Each structure stands twice: as C-alpha cells, then as structure tokens.
C-alpha cells in the first residue's frame, strides 16, 4: 500500500490536493458573486445556479460528447438565471435577498426535474493536466493532476482585480455599487449595470457548477452541491470583495472541505460527517470574527443591501 510509504503525511497532502480540487467551484462562484456585489446587488440564488450549471454541463456533455460544450452550456444557463434575478430585482419594491432565495429553490428544483434521466448515464468529463509525472508517490501525483478549469480560475482572479480597478467598465460598475445616485448623475442606468454584473456572475457560477459534474466528483446526482453556492457567497464577504482574496479564501475552504475525505483515506473515519461540515463551520466562524455591528465592513460596496 502506498499509504504505508507516506503514512500520516497523506493527510496534509490530500488536504492540499483537495484544496486545489474542491476549491474550483468556490472560486468561480465567489468571483462571479464578487462582480455582482461590487455593482451593489447580492444574488443569493447562486446555489441554484451552481446546481443548474452542473446539471446542464453534464447533460450537454453526455448528449454532444464534448465536455467543453458542457462548460459553455453551464455558463449560458447561469447567465439566464442571473438575468432573471436582475430583471426581477429591477422592478420597484422587490427585495434582492428574497428573489435570491426564490431562485435558489427554483434552480435546484428545476435541475432535479430536468436531471432525473442523467443520474444513470456517464458523460465524458474534462481532462486534467498531469504535473506530477516526476513523482512515484500516487498521492502526490493525484494532487498535481490539476484541472484546466482551476487554472482558468487562477488566471481570472488577477484579471478581475485589474478590470475592476483600472478599466472604465470597472469604474462604472463600482460607481453603481458605491452610489447609485452618482451613477445616475453620470448618465448610466443603474439597473442596466447591475443586470450585466448579475449576468456575468451567473455565467461564472454556472461554470463553477460544471466543475462539480464534469471534474470532481464528476457525475450528476441530487446531492452534488449542498451549500457550496451559499458558502461561496459568504466567502465574498470574508474576502472583502477583492477577487484575489476570493482566490485564497476558496483554497482555504477547499482544504477544509477536503479534510473529511483526507482523514478517511488514512483510516480515521470518526466524525466523518462533522468534518464534512467543516466549510460551513469555518464560514460561520470567520463571519463571527470578521463582522462587526458597529462599523460597516471595509471594502463593502455602500449600496449592498446585506450590510445595511
């Protein structure tokens, strides 16, 4: 057994590998939500978008034989859900948090409905790049088998920082998030800006969902995502609406989520379920530590309903 060769070292190695593997959906959803929230609106429905994305990606990949088309389809359906969220929120007197909850239930329900025939068949999944050929230890090789989507996400984070901070588009988006009046005074439609931001957020979340069904765990079932979407939304708050911090936070959460399976792989199955809930407990703990009733959070978009 290879376990014997590295023994308990298998745990940190597996956690590290898990961090890379499990973090990708967190990364995409949090980057998407980051864009949406910087425009001054919160979309709690990304949990539903994630599940819909996973289902659509799997279905498309199964029907067409191309997992990349699946990723695209997931992004597409994510944008549609994002657009739906934004257009409902654009109506007067409609609360964005409530709409998010509604779309969370709608998205998961729809995905379960349409995904019923997809539980049995196996679809082609996305390829990974093997960076670990040099190593003889299977665990190390497993860690270094890195998926292309993760690399895309890694590249996306600094790109978003740049786009938000230096481009004209980023400035307009942030203006809508900091002061809707200022954006209006400049002649921009706040609703149109937020519509685009929510649409892009949905696109990314859908792609995050495609990772779940096409890479890891790499199948479709109704228990695929339980709360990853909502954890990612909380993660954005923790990351102070900064895409680079979203990246590091996703890695942290991925590692936490990998703790249970990693311990199980070396034979520690005590508390398996509690370890599986580690990301949620971590989220809650971090929110307790970093939030404060006295001041608004540093870096928070002023128009965001959730911090008011």
């Amino acid at each position, binding site marked *: 057994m290879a376990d014997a060769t590295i023994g308990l070292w298998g745990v940190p190695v597996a956690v590290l590998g898990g961090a890379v593997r499990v973090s990708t959906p967190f990364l995409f959803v949090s980057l998407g939500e980051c864009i949406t929230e910087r425009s001054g609106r919160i979309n*709690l429905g990304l949990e539903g978008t994630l599940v819909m994305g996973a289902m659509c990606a799997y279905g498309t990949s199964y029907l067409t034989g191309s997992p990349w088309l699946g990723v695209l389809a997931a992004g597409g359906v994510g944008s549609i859900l994002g657009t*739906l969220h934004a257009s*409902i929120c654009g*109506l*007067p*007197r*409609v*609360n964005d*948090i*409530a*709409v998010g*909850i*509604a*779309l969370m*239930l*709608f*998205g*998961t*329900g*729809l995905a*379960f*409905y349409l995904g*019923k025939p997809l539980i049995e068949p196996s679809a082609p999944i996305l390829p990974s790049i093997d960076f670990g050929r040099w190593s003889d230890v299977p665990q190390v090789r497993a860690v270094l088998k890195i998926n292309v989507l993760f690399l895309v996400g890694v590249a996306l984070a600094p790109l978003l920082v740049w786009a938000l901070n230096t481009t004209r588009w980023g400035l307009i988006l942030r203006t809508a998030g900091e002061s809707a009046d200022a954006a209006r005074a400049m002649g921009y439609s706040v609703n149109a800006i937020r519509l685009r931001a929510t649409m892009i957020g949905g696109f990314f979340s859908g792609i995050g969902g495609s990772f779940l069904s096409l890479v890891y765990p790499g199948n479709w079932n109704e228990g695929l995502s*339980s*709360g990853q979407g*909502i*954890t990612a*939304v*909380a993660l954005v*708050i923790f990351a102070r609406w900064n895409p680079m911090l979203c990246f590091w936070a996703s890695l942290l959460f991925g590692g936490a989520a990998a703790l249970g399976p990693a311990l199980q792989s070396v034979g520690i199955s005590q*508390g*398996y*379920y*509690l370890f*599986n*809930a580690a990301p*949620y*407990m971590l*989220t*809650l703990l971090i*929110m*307790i530590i970093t*939030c*404060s*009733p*006295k001041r608004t959070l540093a870096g928070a978009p002023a128009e965001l309903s*959730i*911090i008011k």
Partner: protein
Amino acid sequence: MKAQKQASLSAARAALNRLGDAAEYVIIPALALVASLILFGIFVALFGNNALDLYFYMYQGAFGTWFSWQNTLTRSAPLILTALCTALPAQLGMVIIGGEGALLTGALAATAAALAMPTAPPFVVQITMAVAGIVSGGLWIALAGGLRHYRGVNETISSLLLVYIALAILNQLVEGPMRDPTSLNKPSTREIGAENMIGTIPGTDIHWGFAFGIVAAVLAYVLIYHTVFGFAARVAGGNIRAAKVVGLAVGRLILVTCFLAGGAGGLAGMVEVAAVQGRTNANLAVGYGFTGILVSFLARHNPLAVIPVAILLGGIGASGGLLQRRLGLPDASVFVLQGIIFVTVLMSETLYGRFRLSARKAA
C-alpha cells in the same frame, strides 16, 4: 353639521381604502398563484404532458377526496410551524431561512429526550419531547439572531449555514452514538415507542401536529398584533433607529423573537418524529423548512394567513405522488412549481399600491 358630514364621509373613504388594501393582499397573491399554475402547465406541456390532466390530478391529489384532504392537512402541519420560523423574525425585518435547521435540531432533541426516559408515562414523555424540541430549535435560531445583533453577521446566510451544520450533526449522531444497531441500510436512532406517539385527531388520520400548528399560528398572531411585545417588534422592524431612540431593548426583542421562531421550527421536528417517523434519521430532511420560507412570503409574514397558505402548499406536496404515478412526472416537479410560485409572488410585490391608487382616484 357640514363638518360632521365631511368627517363621516372621510371615515367611509378611509374604510373603503382599508378594504382596498385588504383586498389587495388577497387578490395579488391569488393572481400570482394563478399565473404560476399557468406557467407550470406550460412547462409540463413542453415535456409532452397535457396541462389539463395536470390540473385535474393536482386537484385530485390535494383536495379531491377526504383521503387527499387528510394527506394535505397532515403535510401542512410542519409547514405552518416552519413558516412561523420565517414569519416571526420578518416582523423585525430579519430574513431567517434556517427553518430546516430548527426542525432537524428539534427532532434530534425530541428523540433524545424520549429515548432518555424509557419508563416514564407517555404523557410526560410527549411533553418533554415538545419542550426539548422547542428549546433546541429556539436556541438554534436565537444563535443566528444573536450573531446578527452582537456581531453583525448576516442572519440569512448564517441561518442557512446552520441548516447544513444541523444536518451534519444529525448524520453524525445517527451514524454514531445514537444509532440503532439494527438499522442497517438507513442509519436511524431507536424508535421512541408506539405508546409515545402523539396519535391522530379522533375520526381522522390527521395527527395532532396539525392542531399544534394552528394553535402556534394563532398565538403568534396575538403576540404580534395584540401585545406590547409584538408592537415593539414591529416598530423595531419598521425603523430600528426609532426603536432605539424610544428606548426599546432591540437585542432582547431579536433574541426572544428568534427563539420563538426557532421554537416553532423545533416543534415541527418534534411533530415529525412523534407523529410520523417515530425515530430520527435523514428522512426528516425533506425540505419542509424550505417550503416554510415560501409559505411565509406568500402569506406576507402574517401568522394567520400562514395557515391557509400552508394548507395550499401542503396540498401541492400531497399531489406530488399522484403526478408521479399518473403522469410520470419526476418527484422534483413539486419543487419546480414551488420555485415558480416563489418567483411569481415576489414579482407581484411590485403591483402593490397600483390598485389602491386607482381606487383612490375613483373615490
């Protein structure tokens, strides 16, 4: 004389306006509901089913026979209680969506209480179970409320995270310390015993949980609209600064309200154990807590309106089985319809005041 006439006229106009307001609260959600049913019919028709068949079987499965009525009312019991878990904090302007977590902790605590006292008379066991369920569910949601007040943690996110944590604790206990060794395929706790079940309302198959739900909803209504506490809560919900200025203890209001809300959710868990399942296992997490959120929003967070809305959604849930058998629809079709209703109802929020405006012009 003239002034008197004018006064009575304006009083009549005010009454008319009030009536218009009340009518709006009935007409707009009803319109949203009809629109959702039409949308769902179209959705189902897209997959080659007859929409009229759908409506017929939905009606049959929900309200068509005495049997389906009983099924509907039985399902509405936990929905009334979990809806209160969202409706009570909503008076304070808080959006709590963790009713499922309160239900699970309540079920777990109630089961543990029953298993801890094997020789006690059933009546004592049942009371203890209810208290255990209410207290544990109450503390669970009060935690979310407390975090909101003392740490500024968003209660919507924290209460949802607590659902997943509650589920993990439940799975852990059911697989580990509380596991009945004879439950092989579906890990469960031991049974609480037939004599400790709360039984059905005489002459029906509806369990007493339904009565608990009605009583809880009425109590919640009285609390919110006819007590100083409820008035204070609504003031704090309307304007938190004003509430602080007039010296209301906002923190206490939040904690007590969240405790009561969670207590209702916990009672739902106790009812599901003591009237339906007889034990705790993962079967309890079927989404009553999430449907409860929808019930509360559809009832506009009014505890009395929660009752008919819960019956309606209980009916939709009850018809799911028939839709599965007769039309071959997946069991998730109920969730799709619930999602459509939720979205439509929120969209209809934008309509409030439009009818009122035209009524005023006419007057």
